[in-house]
């Protein structure tokens, strides 16, 4: 890999041990993935934040670092709501460790906003290069916004933040952004159908790039749900939707084709009753989603626990919606979510409207999960 004079000096340790390690990480990954050079990034988004995920091992490494990030950097969801952790049933010891992790990141100059939807706060530019780690945010940034990022790991995103660059390979390059397979779904889809479709397609494709021809016009929230599910059940980091996403016309249509119908998608919705928690907001809710949930909850009272996960930033932007939602007894949860918080573990079965949560809640929380439409989720919560 070709390094500039300055990069070479960092690699030799002339800018301190932390920057040297960060550069070593980038150079080695560049070698592994055949990059010729490093490329500057506009921002970084770092995973490995929840104490439940990284434990003392991660905390030790982050605490030992001594540098400042070179580009705006945000964090993935933590293991708890930083204000209402006690209400969530999080033990004080966990909260202490979690805060220690966030302080360690903050000391590096990282914005301790913990969200899987950083693009609501600081939307990346079309064509801009990023080093983002959260798989659903990677899918959204690449596909819906036309920015460019590989699926970074926690330490590689952090190394990119500290250097302000990432190896120029994979999805940073035009030639690797072309679709591999055309997927036609002519039936009308709505709401959670997109999460179910993503769940199904992710299992089929792994990390291939699909080009969808859809019979309905998805909203941005529906695209978010589609990409998040494909990134969870597979490793899809980029998809195109004809006539919808910004790069869908940039490439020839792939030869490999398949079609799916509503029946294939509906089989992802298994009907099992007896959910003791309903959780929405995977990925974190947008303002539009909060508005819709608030409308569905209007005049109702929640009888089963209902969590609505969003970023603290979106919550702060929408005090009226938050008030309206909380009047029903639903809980708005920030900085964390049903997938990464240990607070989920005490439940038996979780009803979700997200293909991504459907994939991860059983494996990461040991809690059974069922997929339903947002309307059905609200109906069940208020039954």
């Amino acid at each position: 890999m070709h390094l500039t004079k300055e990069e070479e000096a960092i690699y030799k340790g002339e800018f301190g041990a932390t920057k040297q390690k960060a550069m070593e990480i980038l150079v080695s990954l560049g070698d592994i993935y055949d990059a010729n050079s490093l490329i500057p990034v506009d921002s970084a988004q770092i995973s490995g934040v929840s104490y439940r995920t990284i434990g003392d091992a991660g905390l030790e490494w982050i605490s030992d670092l001594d540098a400042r990030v070179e580009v705006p950097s945000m964090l993935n969801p933590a293991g708890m709501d930083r204000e209402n952790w006690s209400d969530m049933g999080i033990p004080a010891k966990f909260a202490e460790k979690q805060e220690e992790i966030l302080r360690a990141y903050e000391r590096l100059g990282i914005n301790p906003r913990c969200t899987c939807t950083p693009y609501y706060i600081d939307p990346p530019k079309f064509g801009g290069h990023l080093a983002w780690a959260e798989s659903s945010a990677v899918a959204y940034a690449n596909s819906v916004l036309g920015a460019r990022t590989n699926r970074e790991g926690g330490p590689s995103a952090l190394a990119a933040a500290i250097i302000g660059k990432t190896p120029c390979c994979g999805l940073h390059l035009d030639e690797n952004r072309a679709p591999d397979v055309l997927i036609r779904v002519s039936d009308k889809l709505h709401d959670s159908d997109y999460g179910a479709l993503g769940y199904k397609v992710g299992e089929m494709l792994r990390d291939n790039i699909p080009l969808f021809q859809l019979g309905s016009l998805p909203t941005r929230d529906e695209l978010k749900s589609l990409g998040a599910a494909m990134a969870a059940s597979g490793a899809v980091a980029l998809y195109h939707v004809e006539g919808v996403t910004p790069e869908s016309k940039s490439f020839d249509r792939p030869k490999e084709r398949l079609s799916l119908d509503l029946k294939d998608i509906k089989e992802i919705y298994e009907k099992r009753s007896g959910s003791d928690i309903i959780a929405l907001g995977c990925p974190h809710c947008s303002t539009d989603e909060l508005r819709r949930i608030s409308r569905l909850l209007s005049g109702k009272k929640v009888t089963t626990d209902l969590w609505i996960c969003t970023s603290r930033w979106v919550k702060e932007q929408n005090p009226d919606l938050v008030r309206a939602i909380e009047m029903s007894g639903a809980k708005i949860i920030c900085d964390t979510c049903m997938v990464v918080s240990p607070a989920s573990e005490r439940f038996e079965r979780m009803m979700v409207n997200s293909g991504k949560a459907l994939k991860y809640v059983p494996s990461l929380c040991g809690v059974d999960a069922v997929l339903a439409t947002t309307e059905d989720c609200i109906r069940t919560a208020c039954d």
Partner: protein
Amino acid sequence: MKIKGRAISRGVARGRALVTSKPISFLGGVDPLSGRIIEEGNELFSEIIANRVLVFPQGKGSTVGSYVLYQLMKNGVAPCAMINITSEAIVAVGAIISGIPLVDCLQTNPLDIIHDGDMVLVNGTEGYVEVIREDKDDKNEISR
């Protein structure tokens, strides 16, 4: 016997080889306190990787595995060096942040030529591996 490879993580170390043909998940697969392999079904189950030259195809599982390597190092029970068939990001990053020499892409498959207990030198700076046989001049060090 000197075999050329690709330098992934810098540093030089030598030690006794511990060899598996199975990928290793450090998160959940290795106890960070003892350095013991705890993944059932792995042929090295219950072996201790501390101060060994760990030879395995590549990492697998959670990316948090990188941090587990760091924790092993902090606890003094990390491998002294590693050799992969082809490294992936989890082990490469873990080795770099922990200062463990790592070489991959050897000219000969390491699983064919390195056996448990062989004395092996790993040069992660220049990118080569040396298998030191008993009949060479290292006899004293080799004898148990």
